[in-house]
């Protein structure tokens, strides 16, 4: 593939290296001139990333300095290589991206849907590829990984689908939010048929996603030990709110889960499944979607959260457009600035301050090509 498909981040770091290389050869006057030019270019492009090399960010970084960052790769939907190598090229590109981050993220979240049809060959291939991620990987499960063998192999490879951990003063909860009520026994479906139905986003035979009573009870116990002032970040594959039911952009017991998170001051939910730039806030909870490496989903015909700034319509002629990976900068406050690293486009950051202010501050660049 060579340099043809360099990601925005790769280009960004190359430019940064060239910039600092150039700085060494400048006197003070020329330095100011370059700094001014750089600031102008950055302002013109609408690029504002907290760890960016551009000098314009120095003043802005005050007070919103991240306490740490983590990256993500999500929704890779792998087939076995002999059947389809395109999605494999995409995940490799994302692995290159996160391995190229400097400084390295504290960890990398895998957002679910590693496999397309839950096959052993797909999951094992994914596990093998993710081994080459330099930072530690936190795994989350998606419905495409689950419904062939109800998560048996996934658990063998990656452990329990729901767990929690603490990192630098933030409490993290990882959920399995893609459980579905039994629609297969009565219909006498084979595991393969069941998987195929769940894999169809618009297949209405399947049930709606849910976290389920048992897991909510576990979550309640887990959160009981956490101080209410501690920032909480939840990872779930499906959005933990109700966006569009027919496509399972939806969690049926979202209200109950949100109620468990209500006592906490600062909560962020990071979710996969929707393959698009997606932002929401419900009371104390901020929500960020993740990009897929495999393909972008269109925005649903109704129910889009008001705070979402749509990403431009993807170019159907470009294999990687609308896809990507990204990074979460966890701020001192415990909230999250979410960087969408859209391949072949300028990256977009959706800031905590944008969601906290109800869209009044720090709005991300607006859409030029909205969905049809």
């Amino acid at each position, binding site marked *: 593939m060579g340099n043809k498909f360099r990601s925005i981040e790769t280009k960004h770091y190359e430019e940064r290296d060239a910039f600092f290389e150039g700085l060494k050869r400048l006197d003070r006057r020329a330095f100011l001139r370059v700094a001014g030019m750089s600031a102008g270019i950055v302002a013109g492009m609408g690029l504002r990333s907290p760890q960016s090399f551009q000098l314009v960010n120095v003043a802005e970084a005050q007070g919103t300095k991240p306490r740490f960052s983590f990256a993500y790769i999500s929704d890779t939907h792998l087939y076995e290589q002999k059947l*389809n190598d395109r999605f494999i090229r995409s995940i490799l590109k994302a692995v290159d991206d996160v391995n190229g981050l400097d400084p390295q993220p504290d960890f990398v979240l895998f957002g679910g849907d590693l496999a397309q049809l839950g096959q052993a060959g797909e999951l094992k291939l994914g596990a093998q590829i993710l081994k080459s991620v330099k930072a530690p990987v936190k795994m989350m499960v998606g419905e495409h990984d689950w419904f062939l063998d109800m998560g048996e192999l996934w658990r063998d490879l990656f452990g329990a689908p729901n767990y929690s951990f603490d990192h630098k003063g933030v409490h993290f909860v990882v959920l399995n939010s893609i459980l579905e009520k039994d629609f297969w026994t009565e219909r006498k479906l084979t595991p393969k048929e069941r998987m195929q139905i769940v894999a*169809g986003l*618009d297949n209405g035979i399947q049930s709606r996603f849910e976290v389920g009573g048992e897991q909510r009870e576990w979550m309640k116990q887990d959160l009981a030990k956490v101080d209410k002032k501690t920032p909480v970040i939840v990872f779930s594959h499906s959005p933990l709110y109700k966006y569009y039911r027919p*496509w399972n952009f939806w969690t049926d017991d979202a209200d109950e889960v949100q109620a468990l998170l209500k006592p906490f001051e600062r909560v962020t939910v990071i979710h996969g499944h929707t393959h698009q730039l997606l932002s929401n806030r419900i009371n104390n909870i901020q929500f960020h979607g993740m990009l897929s490496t495999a*393909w972008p989903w269109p925005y649903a015909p109704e129910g889009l959260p008001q705070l979402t700034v749509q990403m431009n319509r993807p170019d159907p002629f470009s294999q990687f457009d609308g896809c990507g990976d990204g990074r979460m900068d966890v701020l001192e406050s415990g909230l999250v600035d979410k960087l969408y690293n859209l391949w072949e486009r300028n990256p977009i950051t959706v800031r905590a301050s944008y969601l906290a202010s109800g869209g009044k501050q720090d709005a991300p660049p607006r859409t030029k090509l909205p969905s*049809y």
Partner: protein
Amino acid sequence: MTYRMKLWVGAGALLSFAGGVALATSPAPRPESLQTTELPRHKVPVSKDGNLVVGMCDGETSLEVKGVKEGQSLTREQAARVSAELMETWLKKNPDANWDPAPPPGVAQGQKQAPQQKNPPMGTQKPATGGEMREGGVTAESGGKEVRKQAGTNIQDGHSYGAFTQRDEAVWAASTQQFVDEGHRVFHDAAAVGGTIAVSCDMCHPDASNTHPETYPKYQVQLGRVALLRDMINWCIENPVRGKPLADGDPRLRAMEAYIYAQRKGTKLEYGKK
């Protein structure tokens, strides 16, 4: 009608009957599905006296013709009597059926129409039926009462164009839906569309969303020319799906077009939209 005209009509009827017989008896190959499955047959009861028993087209009603043995043929008068009697029995069984003994009275003007939704949610579209369809499919009674109510209405009539019943429309709507459903199948099946890498259309376009058929024809910058919906379908088949483009008349392409348009029912046409 003059005697000569009657002769011509009679001759025409005979010819078309002969043609029908020829068609029915010619050994044309039948589709495979028909060869293997047994079609339902109307088994008429056997007469004790060996009389001829005539079955009706509803598959249930039959009549024993006294004085005519099995194997003998009926005279024209006898046949007319038998058919009239059978029809009478059927009408008794189906008092509300739409049976048109005379030219149909047509449809009244100013008929009430169901209010049209502006942009109904996708995935629930149904083809136009011209009226309300009852649950449970089309029966012999469908529309019968309506027709009777409209008998004698002062309305332009007397030609066959537009002279169809609600039942006709229901049948056409069902055929259209079948076509759309076939498109749904192809759209959701990578192998059916000829894909080689297990990627199907719905993987990027659930419920055919973001296919925006209402924007074609339009100049497709990436193709460097004006494109129709089918050009884009074929582009997708060739590239992301890695299959072979379908010929214009390919039933799969036609069915997919039907499905995609059906999903956008109610959307304003805006050809050329960027």
